[in-house]
Protein backbone atom coordinates (compact mmCIF):
# COMPACT_ATOMS: atom_id res chain seq x y z
CA UNK A 1 0.00 0.00 0.00
CA UNK A 2 1.22 3.45 -0.81
CA UNK A 3 0.05 5.40 -3.83
CA UNK A 4 -2.15 4.28 -6.67
CA UNK A 5 -2.41 5.90 -10.09
CA UNK A 6 -6.14 6.23 -10.80
CA UNK A 7 -5.73 8.00 -14.11
CA UNK A 8 -2.41 8.65 -15.80
CA UNK A 9 -1.25 12.11 -16.83
CA UNK A 10 0.41 13.04 -20.10
CA UNK A 11 3.94 12.05 -19.02
CA UNK A 12 4.35 11.01 -15.38
CA UNK A 13 7.69 9.48 -14.49
CA UNK A 14 10.05 8.78 -11.63
CA UNK A 15 13.10 11.05 -11.71
CA UNK A 16 15.94 12.17 -9.48
CA UNK A 17 19.03 14.33 -9.95
CA UNK A 18 20.20 12.09 -12.77
CA UNK A 19 22.31 9.08 -13.65
CA UNK A 20 25.87 10.34 -13.45
CA UNK A 21 28.97 8.57 -14.77
CA UNK A 22 27.67 6.51 -17.71
CA UNK A 23 27.81 8.93 -20.62
CA UNK A 24 30.71 7.00 -22.16
CA UNK A 25 28.22 4.13 -22.67
CA UNK A 26 25.79 6.47 -24.38
CA UNK A 27 23.60 6.54 -21.26
CA UNK A 28 22.70 10.13 -20.52
CA UNK A 29 22.02 11.50 -17.04
CA UNK A 30 18.33 12.23 -17.59
CA UNK A 31 16.77 13.16 -14.28
CA UNK A 32 14.29 15.88 -13.33
CA UNK A 33 13.96 18.69 -15.88
CA UNK A 34 13.64 21.27 -13.09
CA UNK A 35 16.23 20.02 -10.62
CA UNK A 36 15.69 22.97 -8.28
CA UNK A 37 12.00 22.10 -7.80
CA UNK A 38 12.66 18.37 -7.43
CA UNK A 39 15.36 19.11 -4.85
CA UNK A 40 13.10 21.46 -2.87
CA UNK A 41 10.24 18.92 -2.88
CA UNK A 42 12.61 16.40 -1.31
CA UNK A 43 14.08 18.86 1.21
CA UNK A 44 10.59 19.89 2.37
CA UNK A 45 9.83 16.32 3.45
CA UNK A 46 13.24 15.72 4.99
CA UNK A 47 14.76 13.69 2.13
CA UNK A 48 18.10 14.14 0.44
CA UNK A 49 17.79 16.31 -2.66
CA UNK A 50 18.91 13.33 -4.79
CA UNK A 51 15.95 11.14 -3.77
CA UNK A 52 13.26 9.92 -6.16
CA UNK A 53 10.32 12.17 -7.05
CA UNK A 54 7.38 11.93 -9.43
CA UNK A 55 7.62 14.39 -12.31
CA UNK A 56 4.23 15.29 -13.79
CA UNK A 57 2.96 17.48 -16.63
CA UNK A 58 -0.51 18.79 -17.49
CA UNK A 59 -2.92 17.00 -17.97
CA UNK A 60 -1.74 15.58 -14.64
CA UNK A 61 -2.48 12.21 -13.08
CA UNK A 62 -5.12 11.43 -10.47
CA UNK A 63 -3.45 9.67 -7.56
CA UNK A 64 -4.89 8.02 -4.48
CA UNK A 65 -2.67 8.29 -1.44
CA UNK A 66 -3.38 4.89 0.14
CA UNK A 67 -1.09 5.24 3.12
CA UNK A 68 -0.68 8.14 5.54
CA UNK A 69 2.40 10.13 4.53
CA UNK A 70 4.07 13.52 4.35
CA UNK A 71 4.40 14.81 0.81
CA UNK A 72 5.33 18.07 -0.89
CA UNK A 73 4.44 19.42 -4.33
CA UNK A 74 6.71 21.95 -6.07
CA UNK A 75 7.41 23.39 -9.53
CA UNK A 76 4.49 24.15 -11.84
CA UNK A 77 1.16 25.27 -10.38
CA UNK A 78 -1.48 22.80 -11.64
CA UNK A 79 -4.04 23.73 -8.94
CA UNK A 80 -3.40 20.73 -6.71
CA UNK A 81 -6.33 19.49 -4.61
CA UNK A 82 -6.58 16.88 -1.87
CA UNK A 83 -10.09 15.42 -1.73
CA UNK A 84 -11.22 18.50 -3.63
CA UNK A 85 -9.70 21.11 -1.33
CA UNK A 86 -6.92 23.33 -2.75
CA UNK A 87 -3.52 22.22 -1.44
CA UNK A 88 -0.55 24.60 -1.15
CA UNK A 89 2.68 24.11 -3.09
CA UNK A 90 6.16 24.39 -1.55
CA UNK A 91 4.87 23.24 1.82
CA UNK A 92 4.97 19.81 3.50
CA UNK A 93 1.51 18.23 3.68
CA UNK A 94 0.46 15.53 6.12
CA UNK A 95 -2.02 13.39 4.19
CA UNK A 96 -4.19 10.61 5.62
CA UNK A 97 -4.65 7.27 3.91
CA UNK A 98 -7.26 7.14 1.11
CA UNK A 99 -7.00 10.76 0.06
CA UNK A 100 -7.25 11.69 -3.60
CA UNK A 101 -4.68 14.01 -5.17
CA UNK A 102 -5.94 15.75 -8.29
CA UNK A 103 -4.75 18.68 -10.38
CA UNK A 104 -7.48 20.94 -11.77
CA UNK A 105 -5.83 23.28 -14.25
CA UNK A 106 -2.52 24.59 -15.42
CA UNK A 107 -1.90 28.01 -13.88
CA UNK A 108 1.84 28.41 -14.35
CA UNK A 109 4.87 26.35 -15.38
CA UNK A 110 5.07 23.04 -17.18
CA UNK A 111 6.31 20.39 -14.70
CA UNK A 112 5.47 19.69 -11.08
CA UNK A 113 7.25 17.41 -8.62
CA UNK A 114 5.92 15.27 -5.78
CA UNK A 115 8.21 13.96 -3.05
CA UNK A 116 7.27 11.71 -0.13
CA UNK A 117 8.89 11.41 3.28
CA UNK A 118 7.99 7.70 3.13
CA UNK A 119 10.02 7.49 -0.11
CA UNK A 120 9.06 5.71 -3.30
CA UNK A 121 10.10 2.07 -3.34
CA UNK A 122 11.68 1.99 -6.78
CA UNK A 123 14.94 0.15 -7.52
CA UNK A 124 18.16 1.87 -8.50
CA UNK A 125 19.46 1.27 -12.03
CA UNK A 126 23.08 2.40 -12.45
CA UNK A 127 22.90 4.38 -9.21
CA UNK A 128 19.84 6.39 -10.13
CA UNK A 129 16.05 6.24 -9.83
CA UNK A 130 15.55 8.27 -13.02
CA UNK A 131 13.50 6.75 -15.82
CA UNK A 132 15.47 6.33 -19.05
CA UNK A 133 12.68 5.96 -21.63
CA UNK A 134 15.02 5.03 -24.49
CA UNK A 135 16.71 2.27 -22.54
CA UNK A 136 13.40 1.22 -20.97
CA UNK A 137 15.19 1.09 -17.64
CA UNK A 138 15.26 2.93 -14.35
CA UNK A 139 12.35 4.50 -12.50
CA UNK A 140 9.10 2.52 -12.54
CA UNK A 141 9.81 -0.41 -14.93
CA UNK A 142 11.61 1.96 -17.29
CA UNK A 143 8.37 3.63 -18.37
CA UNK A 144 5.84 6.35 -17.63
CA UNK A 145 3.31 5.72 -14.88
CA UNK A 146 0.04 4.13 -16.03
CA UNK A 147 -3.45 3.81 -14.59
CA UNK A 148 -3.62 1.03 -11.98
CA UNK A 149 0.10 1.25 -11.12
CA UNK A 150 0.61 0.92 -7.36
CA UNK A 151 3.90 2.33 -6.13
CA UNK A 152 4.99 1.12 -2.71
CA UNK A 153 6.59 3.27 -0.06
CA UNK A 154 9.87 2.29 1.54
CA UNK A 155 8.80 3.28 5.05
CA UNK A 156 5.66 3.44 7.16
CA UNK A 157 5.32 6.24 9.68
CA UNK A 158 2.63 7.08 12.22
CA UNK A 159 1.59 10.65 12.83
CA UNK A 160 -0.68 12.45 15.24
CA UNK A 161 -2.34 15.65 14.27
CA UNK A 162 -4.88 14.48 11.72
CA UNK A 163 -8.01 15.12 13.73
CA UNK A 164 -11.24 15.43 11.74
CA UNK A 165 -9.25 16.19 8.63
CA UNK A 166 -7.86 14.17 5.79
CA UNK A 167 -4.86 16.41 5.37
CA UNK A 168 -3.11 19.41 6.85
CA UNK A 169 -0.26 21.68 5.80
CA UNK A 170 2.69 21.68 8.19
CA UNK A 171 3.67 25.16 9.41
CA UNK A 172 6.68 25.95 7.20
CA UNK A 173 7.25 26.55 3.52
CA UNK A 174 9.96 27.40 1.03
CA UNK A 175 9.93 30.39 -1.30
CA UNK A 176 10.71 29.23 -4.86
CA UNK A 177 13.66 30.74 -6.69
CA UNK A 178 12.77 33.91 -8.62
CA UNK A 179 12.47 33.43 -12.39
CA UNK A 180 14.91 35.44 -14.48
CA UNK A 181 13.59 37.57 -17.39
CA UNK A 182 16.71 36.86 -19.37
CA UNK A 183 18.56 33.55 -19.53
CA UNK A 184 22.28 33.70 -18.85
CA UNK A 185 24.39 31.75 -21.33
CA UNK A 186 28.09 31.12 -21.86
CA UNK A 187 29.70 30.95 -25.29
CA UNK A 188 29.94 27.30 -26.37
CA UNK A 189 32.90 25.49 -27.95
CA UNK A 190 31.78 26.50 -31.48
CA UNK A 191 30.57 30.03 -30.65
CA UNK A 192 33.35 31.44 -32.82
CA UNK A 193 31.84 29.67 -35.84
CA UNK A 194 29.04 32.27 -35.78
CA UNK A 195 29.35 35.44 -37.85
CA UNK A 196 29.45 38.77 -35.99
CA UNK A 197 25.84 39.34 -37.06
CA UNK A 198 24.75 35.94 -35.74
CA UNK A 199 26.55 36.55 -32.46
CA UNK A 200 24.61 39.81 -32.06
CA UNK A 201 21.32 38.13 -33.03
CA UNK A 202 21.80 35.51 -30.32
CA UNK A 203 21.64 38.22 -27.66
CA UNK A 204 19.28 40.67 -29.36
CA UNK A 205 16.55 38.42 -30.74
CA UNK A 206 13.58 37.17 -28.81
CA UNK A 207 13.12 33.44 -29.44
CA UNK A 208 9.92 31.42 -29.18
CA UNK A 209 9.76 27.86 -27.87
CA UNK A 210 8.23 25.78 -30.68
CA UNK A 211 5.71 22.99 -30.33
CA UNK A 212 8.62 20.52 -30.63
CA UNK A 213 9.65 20.88 -27.01
CA UNK A 214 9.97 17.89 -24.75
CA UNK A 215 12.31 16.23 -22.25
CA UNK A 216 14.90 15.74 -25.00
CA UNK A 217 15.09 19.31 -26.22
CA UNK A 218 13.32 22.53 -27.15
CA UNK A 219 13.36 23.62 -30.78
CA UNK A 220 13.13 27.41 -31.13
CA UNK A 221 11.11 28.99 -33.94
CA UNK A 222 13.52 31.79 -34.78
CA UNK A 223 17.03 31.28 -36.10
CA UNK A 224 20.35 32.99 -36.66
CA UNK A 225 21.94 34.05 -39.92
CA UNK A 226 24.20 31.19 -40.95
CA UNK A 227 27.22 31.07 -43.17
CA UNK A 228 28.32 27.73 -44.59
CA UNK A 229 30.83 26.24 -42.22
CA UNK A 230 32.73 23.07 -41.56
CA UNK A 231 31.04 19.91 -40.27
CA UNK A 232 31.56 19.13 -36.63
CA UNK A 233 32.44 15.57 -35.70
CA UNK A 234 30.10 14.23 -33.05
CA UNK A 235 31.23 15.43 -29.61
CA UNK A 236 29.95 15.61 -26.02
CA UNK A 237 26.95 17.77 -25.11
CA UNK A 238 25.22 18.78 -21.90
CA UNK A 239 21.84 19.72 -20.41
CA UNK A 240 21.40 23.28 -21.63
CA UNK A 241 23.66 23.09 -24.67
CA UNK A 242 22.33 25.30 -27.50
CA UNK A 243 22.96 23.67 -30.87
CA UNK A 244 22.86 25.40 -34.25
CA UNK A 245 21.09 23.47 -37.02
CA UNK A 246 22.26 23.83 -40.65
CA UNK A 247 19.26 26.10 -41.42
CA UNK A 248 20.16 28.48 -38.57
CA UNK A 249 17.48 27.27 -36.16
CA UNK A 250 18.41 26.57 -32.55
CA UNK A 251 17.78 23.61 -30.25
CA UNK A 252 18.19 23.73 -26.47
CA UNK A 253 19.18 20.27 -25.23
CA UNK A 254 17.17 19.28 -22.15
CA UNK A 255 17.43 16.49 -19.56
CA UNK A 256 16.96 13.51 -21.94
CA UNK A 257 19.34 14.82 -24.61
CA UNK A 258 21.75 12.49 -26.43
CA UNK A 259 25.21 12.36 -24.86
CA UNK A 260 26.83 13.58 -28.08
CA UNK A 261 25.90 15.47 -31.18
CA UNK A 262 27.31 16.78 -34.43
CA UNK A 263 25.69 20.22 -34.48
CA UNK A 264 27.85 23.18 -33.42
CA UNK A 265 27.47 23.95 -29.70
CA UNK A 266 27.20 27.69 -29.97
CA UNK A 267 26.23 28.35 -26.36
CA UNK A 268 25.49 26.76 -23.02
CA UNK A 269 22.74 27.85 -20.66
CA UNK A 270 24.16 28.32 -17.16
CA UNK A 271 23.08 25.62 -14.72
CA UNK A 272 21.36 28.09 -12.40
CA UNK A 273 19.00 29.18 -15.22
CA UNK A 274 17.97 25.67 -16.37
CA UNK A 275 15.11 25.24 -13.86
CA UNK A 276 13.42 28.36 -15.27
CA UNK A 277 13.85 27.10 -18.85
CA UNK A 278 12.50 23.70 -17.79
CA UNK A 279 9.27 25.41 -16.65
CA UNK A 280 8.71 27.08 -20.05
CA UNK A 281 6.16 25.80 -22.53
CA UNK A 282 5.65 25.99 -26.32
CA UNK A 283 4.75 29.52 -27.43
CA UNK A 284 6.62 31.20 -24.58
CA UNK A 285 9.45 33.62 -25.26
CA UNK A 286 13.09 33.30 -24.30
CA UNK A 287 15.94 35.81 -24.44
CA UNK A 288 19.63 35.12 -23.94
CA UNK A 289 22.46 37.19 -22.48
CA UNK A 290 26.10 36.15 -22.43
CA UNK A 291 27.63 36.30 -18.98
CA UNK A 292 31.15 35.65 -17.78
CA UNK A 293 32.45 32.25 -16.73
CA UNK A 294 33.06 33.63 -13.22
CA UNK A 295 29.48 34.90 -12.94
CA UNK A 296 28.06 31.52 -14.05
CA UNK A 297 30.21 29.76 -11.46
CA UNK A 298 29.08 32.19 -8.77
CA UNK A 299 25.41 31.62 -9.65
CA UNK A 300 25.86 27.85 -9.57
CA UNK A 301 27.60 27.85 -6.22
CA UNK A 302 25.20 30.30 -4.62
CA UNK A 303 22.25 28.16 -5.72
CA UNK A 304 24.04 25.10 -4.34
CA UNK A 305 24.74 26.82 -1.02
CA UNK A 306 21.17 28.09 -0.85
CA UNK A 307 19.97 24.47 -1.28
CA UNK A 308 22.24 23.32 1.55
CA UNK A 309 20.83 26.00 3.88
CA UNK A 310 17.26 25.11 2.85
CA UNK A 311 17.98 21.48 3.63
CA UNK A 312 19.25 22.27 7.10
CA UNK A 313 16.30 24.57 7.79
CA UNK A 314 13.71 22.05 6.57
CA UNK A 315 15.31 19.24 8.59
CA UNK A 316 15.22 21.32 11.79
CA UNK A 317 11.57 22.26 11.27
CA UNK A 318 10.60 18.70 10.46
CA UNK A 319 12.53 17.21 13.40
CA UNK A 320 10.84 19.48 15.90
CA UNK A 321 7.40 18.82 14.39
CA UNK A 322 7.99 15.05 14.38
CA UNK A 323 9.03 15.12 18.01
CA UNK A 324 5.48 16.13 18.93
CA UNK A 325 3.55 14.36 16.21
CA UNK A 326 5.22 11.10 15.32
CA UNK A 327 4.82 7.94 17.35
CA UNK A 328 5.81 4.34 17.15
CA UNK A 329 2.88 1.95 17.26
CA UNK A 330 2.76 -0.32 20.34
Amino acid at each position, binding site marked *: MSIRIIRKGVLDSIQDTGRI*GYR*HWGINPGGAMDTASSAIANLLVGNKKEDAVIEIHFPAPVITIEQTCILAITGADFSATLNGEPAPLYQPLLVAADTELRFKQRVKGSRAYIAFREQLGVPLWLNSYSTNFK*AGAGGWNGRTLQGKDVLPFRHTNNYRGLTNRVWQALPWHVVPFPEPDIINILPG*PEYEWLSDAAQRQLEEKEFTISTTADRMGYHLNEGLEVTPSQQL*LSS*GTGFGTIQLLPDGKLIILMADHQV*SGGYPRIAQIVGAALPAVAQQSPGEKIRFRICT*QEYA*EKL*YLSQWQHMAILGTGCNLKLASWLEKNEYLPD
Partner: protein
Amino acid sequence: MAFPSPYKIVPLGENAVVILWENRIDTGLHKTVLTIYRHLQAKMQDVIIDLVPAYSSLTVYYTPEKAISLKPPATSLYNYIRDRIEKSIALVNETADETNTIVKIPVCYDNEYAPDLANLTREKEMTRDEVVNLHSSRIYTVFMIGFLPGFAYLGEVDPGIATPRKRTPRPVKAGAVGIAGSQTGIYPLDSPGGWHIIGQTPVSMFNAQKHPPVTLEAGYKVQFYPISSYEYKNYQEGSAG
Protein backbone atom coordinates in the same frame (compact mmCIF):
# COMPACT_ATOMS: atom_id res chain seq x y z
CA MET B 1 56.12 13.08 -32.95
CA ALA B 2 55.51 14.96 -29.73
CA PHE B 3 52.75 13.64 -27.52
CA PRO B 4 50.04 14.62 -27.39
CA SER B 5 49.01 16.31 -30.64
CA PRO B 6 48.09 19.98 -30.19
CA TYR B 7 44.83 20.49 -28.35
CA LYS B 8 42.80 23.24 -26.78
CA ILE B 9 40.48 23.27 -23.80
CA VAL B 10 37.22 25.23 -23.92
CA PRO B 11 34.39 25.48 -21.40
CA LEU B 12 30.96 23.90 -21.96
CA GLY B 13 29.11 25.81 -19.25
CA GLU B 14 30.30 25.96 -15.66
CA ASN B 15 30.44 22.21 -15.11
CA ALA B 16 32.14 20.78 -18.20
CA VAL B 17 35.06 21.42 -20.52
CA VAL B 18 35.81 20.05 -23.97
CA ILE B 19 39.33 19.06 -24.95
CA LEU B 20 39.46 19.58 -28.71
CA TRP B 21 41.96 18.19 -31.14
CA GLU B 22 41.88 18.81 -34.88
CA ASN B 23 38.33 18.25 -36.19
CA ARG B 24 39.01 15.15 -38.33
CA ILE B 25 38.67 11.37 -38.23
CA ASP B 26 42.09 9.88 -37.66
CA THR B 27 42.93 6.69 -35.79
CA GLY B 28 46.16 8.17 -34.39
CA LEU B 29 44.31 11.19 -33.02
CA HIS B 30 41.65 8.90 -31.63
CA LYS B 31 44.28 6.84 -29.78
CA THR B 32 45.42 10.05 -28.15
CA VAL B 33 41.84 10.84 -27.10
CA LEU B 34 41.47 7.40 -25.53
CA THR B 35 44.82 7.60 -23.75
CA ILE B 36 43.94 10.96 -22.20
CA TYR B 37 40.42 9.71 -21.44
CA ARG B 38 41.74 6.74 -19.42
CA HIS B 39 44.38 8.86 -17.77
CA LEU B 40 41.96 11.58 -16.59
CA GLN B 41 39.41 8.96 -15.55
CA ALA B 42 42.01 7.47 -13.22
CA LYS B 43 43.79 10.61 -12.03
CA MET B 44 41.02 13.16 -11.57
CA GLN B 45 38.34 11.10 -9.85
CA ASP B 46 38.13 13.72 -7.13
CA VAL B 47 36.36 16.22 -9.40
CA ILE B 48 35.47 14.48 -12.67
CA ILE B 49 32.09 12.74 -12.70
CA ASP B 50 31.64 11.84 -16.38
CA LEU B 51 33.61 11.74 -19.62
CA VAL B 52 32.64 11.43 -23.28
CA PRO B 53 35.50 10.35 -25.53
CA ALA B 54 34.72 11.05 -29.19
CA TYR B 55 36.56 11.09 -32.56
CA SER B 56 38.87 13.96 -31.80
CA SER B 57 37.49 15.45 -28.60
CA LEU B 58 37.03 14.53 -24.98
CA THR B 59 34.27 16.16 -22.94
CA VAL B 60 34.93 16.22 -19.22
CA TYR B 61 32.10 16.85 -16.72
CA TYR B 62 32.90 17.95 -13.18
CA THR B 63 31.11 19.09 -10.05
CA PRO B 64 31.73 22.74 -9.18
CA GLU B 65 30.79 22.09 -5.54
CA LYS B 66 33.68 19.63 -5.25
CA ALA B 67 36.15 21.73 -7.18
CA ILE B 68 35.44 24.78 -5.02
CA SER B 69 36.93 23.10 -1.96
CA LEU B 70 40.08 22.08 -3.84
CA LYS B 71 40.94 25.15 -5.88
CA PRO B 72 43.20 28.02 -4.81
CA PRO B 73 41.04 30.99 -3.70
CA ALA B 74 42.03 33.41 -6.46
CA THR B 75 41.42 31.00 -9.35
CA SER B 76 38.13 30.49 -11.17
CA LEU B 77 36.78 26.94 -11.21
CA TYR B 78 37.28 26.73 -14.95
CA ASN B 79 40.91 27.82 -14.72
CA TYR B 80 41.51 25.35 -11.92
CA ILE B 81 40.06 22.43 -13.92
CA ARG B 82 41.86 23.48 -17.10
CA ASP B 83 45.20 23.74 -15.28
CA ARG B 84 44.76 20.36 -13.67
CA ILE B 85 43.89 18.73 -17.00
CA GLU B 86 46.88 20.36 -18.69
CA LYS B 87 49.25 19.27 -15.93
CA SER B 88 47.79 15.79 -15.95
CA ILE B 89 48.12 15.48 -19.73
CA ALA B 90 51.75 16.66 -19.52
CA LEU B 91 52.53 13.57 -17.45
CA VAL B 92 51.37 11.22 -20.21
CA ASN B 93 54.12 10.63 -22.68
CA GLU B 94 52.79 8.05 -25.07
CA THR B 95 49.63 6.44 -26.29
CA ALA B 96 48.45 3.46 -24.31
CA ASP B 97 48.82 -0.01 -25.75
CA GLU B 98 45.96 -0.96 -27.95
CA THR B 99 43.69 -3.81 -27.15
CA ASN B 100 44.29 -6.82 -29.38
CA THR B 101 40.93 -8.36 -28.69
CA ILE B 102 38.59 -8.24 -31.62
CA VAL B 103 34.87 -8.53 -30.94
CA LYS B 104 33.44 -10.67 -33.75
CA ILE B 105 29.86 -9.86 -34.59
CA PRO B 106 27.70 -12.08 -36.83
CA VAL B 107 25.58 -10.25 -39.40
CA CYS B 108 22.91 -11.65 -41.65
CA TYR B 109 23.12 -9.68 -44.91
CA ASP B 110 20.10 -11.46 -46.49
CA ASN B 111 17.46 -9.32 -48.20
CA GLU B 112 14.87 -9.64 -45.46
CA TYR B 113 17.35 -8.11 -42.99
CA ALA B 114 18.99 -5.61 -45.34
CA PRO B 115 16.41 -3.15 -46.68
CA ASP B 116 19.01 -0.79 -48.17
CA LEU B 117 21.57 -3.28 -49.50
CA ALA B 118 20.03 -3.65 -52.95
CA ASN B 119 20.09 0.12 -53.48
CA LEU B 120 23.67 0.34 -52.32
CA THR B 121 24.87 -2.41 -54.67
CA ARG B 122 23.10 -0.69 -57.57
CA GLU B 123 24.53 2.70 -56.70
CA LYS B 124 28.07 1.35 -56.22
CA GLU B 125 27.78 -1.01 -59.25
CA MET B 126 28.92 -3.92 -57.10
CA THR B 127 27.58 -7.35 -56.43
CA ARG B 128 26.02 -8.14 -53.08
CA ASP B 129 29.00 -10.37 -52.24
CA GLU B 130 31.44 -7.56 -53.00
CA VAL B 131 29.66 -5.17 -50.63
CA VAL B 132 29.40 -7.86 -47.93
CA ASN B 133 33.08 -8.72 -48.36
CA LEU B 134 34.17 -5.10 -48.12
CA HIS B 135 32.02 -4.56 -45.04
CA SER B 136 33.07 -7.74 -43.22
CA SER B 137 36.76 -7.90 -44.11
CA ARG B 138 37.89 -4.80 -42.23
CA ILE B 139 38.70 -4.57 -38.54
CA TYR B 140 36.95 -1.47 -37.26
CA THR B 141 37.69 0.75 -34.29
CA VAL B 142 34.89 1.88 -31.97
CA PHE B 143 35.44 5.64 -32.16
CA MET B 144 32.75 6.50 -29.66
CA ILE B 145 29.47 5.49 -28.08
CA GLY B 146 26.68 8.00 -28.52
CA PHE B 147 23.25 8.77 -30.01
CA LEU B 148 21.60 5.83 -28.14
CA PRO B 149 22.72 3.74 -25.14
CA GLY B 150 25.39 1.41 -26.54
CA PHE B 151 25.38 2.82 -30.11
CA ALA B 152 28.95 2.34 -31.37
CA TYR B 153 30.32 4.54 -34.13
CA LEU B 154 32.67 2.21 -36.04
CA GLY B 155 35.08 3.22 -38.73
CA GLU B 156 36.15 3.59 -41.24
CA VAL B 157 34.49 1.58 -43.98
CA ASP B 158 36.13 0.96 -47.35
CA PRO B 159 35.60 4.13 -49.44
CA GLY B 160 33.87 1.89 -52.02
CA ILE B 161 30.87 1.40 -49.74
CA ALA B 162 30.78 4.78 -47.97
CA THR B 163 27.50 6.58 -48.62
CA PRO B 164 25.90 9.75 -47.18
CA ARG B 165 23.20 9.25 -44.58
CA LYS B 166 19.56 9.38 -45.68
CA ARG B 167 17.79 12.73 -45.68
CA THR B 168 14.82 11.48 -43.71
CA PRO B 169 15.09 9.07 -40.78
CA ARG B 170 12.67 6.13 -40.66
CA PRO B 171 12.08 3.42 -38.03
CA VAL B 172 15.04 1.07 -37.59
CA LYS B 173 15.07 -2.19 -35.60
CA ALA B 174 17.44 -3.07 -32.77
CA GLY B 175 20.36 -5.05 -34.21
CA ALA B 176 20.25 -3.32 -37.61
CA VAL B 177 23.72 -2.76 -39.08
CA GLY B 178 24.06 0.42 -41.08
CA ILE B 179 26.40 2.66 -43.00
CA ALA B 180 26.46 6.47 -42.88
CA GLY B 181 29.31 8.33 -44.52
CA SER B 182 32.50 6.44 -43.74
CA GLN B 183 30.96 5.06 -40.54
CA THR B 184 29.25 1.80 -39.80
CA GLY B 185 27.22 1.04 -36.70
CA ILE B 186 24.69 -1.21 -35.02
CA TYR B 187 21.38 0.05 -33.64
CA PRO B 188 21.17 -1.18 -30.03
CA LEU B 189 17.46 -0.33 -29.72
CA ASP B 190 14.50 0.29 -32.00
CA SER B 191 14.83 3.92 -33.05
CA PRO B 192 14.30 6.33 -35.90
CA GLY B 193 17.52 6.45 -37.90
CA GLY B 194 19.04 7.70 -41.13
CA TRP B 195 21.69 5.06 -41.72
CA HIS B 196 21.54 2.68 -44.73
CA ILE B 197 20.69 -0.72 -43.29
CA ILE B 198 22.67 -3.52 -44.93
CA GLY B 199 22.22 -6.31 -42.38
CA GLN B 200 21.08 -7.42 -38.98
CA THR B 201 22.93 -8.95 -36.04
CA PRO B 202 21.33 -11.27 -33.49
CA VAL B 203 23.83 -10.05 -30.86
CA SER B 204 22.33 -7.55 -28.44
CA MET B 205 24.27 -4.31 -28.13
CA PHE B 206 22.41 -3.10 -25.06
CA ASN B 207 20.85 -4.99 -22.18
CA ALA B 208 19.81 -2.99 -19.13
CA GLN B 209 19.86 -6.14 -16.95
CA LYS B 210 23.54 -6.84 -17.63
CA HIS B 211 26.57 -5.10 -16.23
CA PRO B 212 27.96 -3.45 -18.19
CA PRO B 213 24.73 -2.99 -20.13
CA VAL B 214 26.65 -2.23 -23.33
CA THR B 215 28.53 -4.72 -25.52
CA LEU B 216 30.99 -2.26 -27.06
CA GLU B 217 33.03 0.61 -25.64
CA ALA B 218 35.23 3.29 -27.23
CA GLY B 219 38.54 1.76 -28.34
CA TYR B 220 37.22 -1.78 -28.92
CA LYS B 221 38.06 -3.52 -32.20
CA VAL B 222 35.17 -5.04 -34.12
CA GLN B 223 34.88 -7.33 -37.12
CA PHE B 224 31.67 -8.52 -38.75
CA TYR B 225 31.17 -11.99 -40.24
CA PRO B 226 28.32 -13.05 -42.49
CA ILE B 227 25.79 -15.62 -41.34
CA SER B 228 22.79 -17.17 -43.07
CA SER B 229 19.20 -16.38 -42.10
CA TYR B 230 19.03 -19.91 -40.64
CA GLU B 231 22.01 -19.15 -38.39
CA TYR B 232 20.49 -15.79 -37.54
CA LYS B 233 17.22 -17.36 -36.41
CA ASN B 234 18.99 -20.05 -34.38
CA TYR B 235 21.60 -17.80 -32.85
CA GLN B 236 22.05 -18.17 -29.10
CA GLU B 237 23.29 -15.18 -27.15
CA GLY B 238 26.76 -15.80 -25.76
CA SER B 239 28.09 -17.81 -28.70
CA ALA B 240 29.73 -14.77 -30.34
CA GLY B 241 33.44 -15.11 -31.04
